[in-house]
């Protein structure tokens, strides 16, 4: 090797992510989402001022992977817990990391009101259209016809109702400052997701109100398909049901066009 070559590190573990193995299944996008959140927190230089709230669900152990203060909430209650933390620590960055069952089912009341209040927290919403931790039951975001262990013949909307679109719902709240949906199914979309996460945390730092980034995610284990097909499932089946886009963007941070997504 020529001696005049300078070693340049182009890729390393973010400081906000602990050097440990995760419990996530192969092909699961939780790891990608974790890394994006950690990179954004590193880039903003706020790791030591950030408090995370973990949910109940597959990401129940998120605090084992993030290198920052964390609380573990009851199922669905992370937004209420984060409210308590933020109200008495307004100078801290407070975020929750929640799955679709946690946020849109058992925690539907809490997420609605945290958005309505314009609580200055950031919510990372992982939507993979299924319950992961309990082994593949129907989620509030399960697609019509989708087979799960509690809808073995497929989700029959006559019986089980329709999937909830949380960005569309929460963007109606006056307190919401930044509500967007992104996807983690390919590199281009992962890059857009990271930009959105950065904006969401910036919205919080600027004190503009409630921010949420929904991330369409894969669950190959409980969908019963290989990882590569799972990414395809997001693209083919989830994107039409959950359109990507900016559902609410506070005027103070522009119209979001630079992020390349329109709601």
């Amino acid at each position, binding site marked *: 090797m020529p001696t005049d070559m300078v070693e340049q590190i182009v890729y390393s573990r973010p400081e906000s992510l602990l050097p440990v193995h995760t419990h996530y299944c192969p092909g699961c996008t939780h790891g990608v989402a974790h890394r994006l959140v950690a990179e954004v927190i590193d880039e903003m230089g706020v*790791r*030591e*001022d*950030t*408090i995370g*709230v*973990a949910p109940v669900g597959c990401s*129940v*152990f998120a*605090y084992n992977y*993030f*290198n*920052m*203060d*964390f*609380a*573990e*909430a*009851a199922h669905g*209650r992370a937004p*209420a*817990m*984060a*409210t*308590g*933390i*933020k*109200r*008495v*620590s307004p100078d*801290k960055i407070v975020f929750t990391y929640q799955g679709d069952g946690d946020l849109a089912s058992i925690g539907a*009341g*809490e997420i*609605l*009101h945290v958005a309505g209040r314009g609580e200055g927290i950031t919510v990372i919403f992982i939507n993979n259209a299924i319950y992961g931790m309990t082994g593949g039951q129907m989620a509030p975001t399960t697609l019509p016809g989708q087979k799960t262990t509690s809808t073995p013949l497929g989700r029959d909307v006559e019986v089980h109702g329709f999937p909830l679109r949380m960005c569309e719902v929460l963007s109606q709240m006056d307190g919401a400052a930044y509500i967007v949906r992104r996807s983690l199914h390919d590199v281009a979309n992962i890059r857009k997701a990271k930009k959105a996460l950065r904006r969401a945390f910036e919205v919080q730092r600027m004190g503009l109100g409630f921010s949420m980034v929904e991330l369409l995610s894969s669950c190959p284990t409980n969908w019963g398909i290989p990882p590569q097909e799972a990414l395809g499932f997001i693209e083919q089946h989830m994107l039409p049901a959950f359109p990507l886009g900016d559902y609410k963007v506070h005027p103070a941070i522009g119209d979001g066009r630079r992020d390349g997504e329109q709601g």
Partner: protein
Amino acid sequence: MAKELLEGNRAFAEAAVRAGCEAYFGYPITPQTEALEHMAARMPELGRVFLQAESEVAAVNMVYGAACAGVRVMSSSSSPGVSLMMEGLSYIAGSEVPVVLVDVMRGGPGLGNIAPSQGDYNQIVKGGGHGDYRPIVLAPATVQELIDLTYEAFDLAEKYRCIVVVLTDGNLGQMMEPAELPPMRAVRAASERPAWALTGARNRKPNLISSIYIDPVKEEIFNQQLQAKQREIEAHEVRAREVLLDDADIGVVAFGTSGRIAYSAIQQARAEGIRVGLLRPISLYPFPYDHVRRLAETVRSILVVEMNSGQMLEDVRLGALGRVPIRFYGRMGGMTPMPDEILEEIRKLHAERGAGA
């Protein structure tokens, strides 16, 4: 500070303010809503946090979050609302963060009514939520005691990193009587929050506050530690008031409002020459079992009076261990016993003893 005419609900809220309570989260429910209203006005004017939650479920989790951040925090509610808080209280107990809750009990079960009751004894004193834990439970009988116990509750909660419940009822919450408020304490500076609190991992390792131990071995070790703490609380925090028991043949055991009314009946019975006294448990957990044992060793019979079907009665039986006959008199569903009713029970016990002697 001089005595003022104070309403129970507003009095305990102001006592909490003066104890340095930095945040209050609650939801309106009769008969405790005046406490929430007092906090709504008082906390913002002091630059502290008041937030009306969307439900008691959310309120208790906001309390949980604020407690994790290391501030003095409380909620107050009444029976149906407290039922909704049980999930959160179990998590709080499992995370060992200090929290104060005031339960202004009302008639039940179900929606019940808004009249005073002591029907939450089992739910509050025995734990309430899932798993093995007990909050410290303090039962005042006067507005003054409601103030004093609420004021002290914050110290106890922090000392043991546990839940302290002030268990009162609609009588005391709605009652006005002369009482003295304690001095104002400053809230803790943000820089003085406890080392375990979630304050941002600056120049230290991250703090985690959680009630999950996925490995049963570790969960059992945590439970053993929690139980050791419960034994410590039981050894140091028993409180009871004993009145006119020195020469008593009959011992009345009653807490809170019932204890206060029983005392009126006891004074009337004394005027009739009946040697009767009162044991009023103030700490319901830890329960004054030794006081009851001593009582059972000195009196010939015990009368337990409650505004429920006999929930504390079981603890009195455990303390007395069959040494003396125990009679129960209770009113339920929001009914408060009159002194005459209790006096009649005392007379009956006295007559039976006379006949047997």
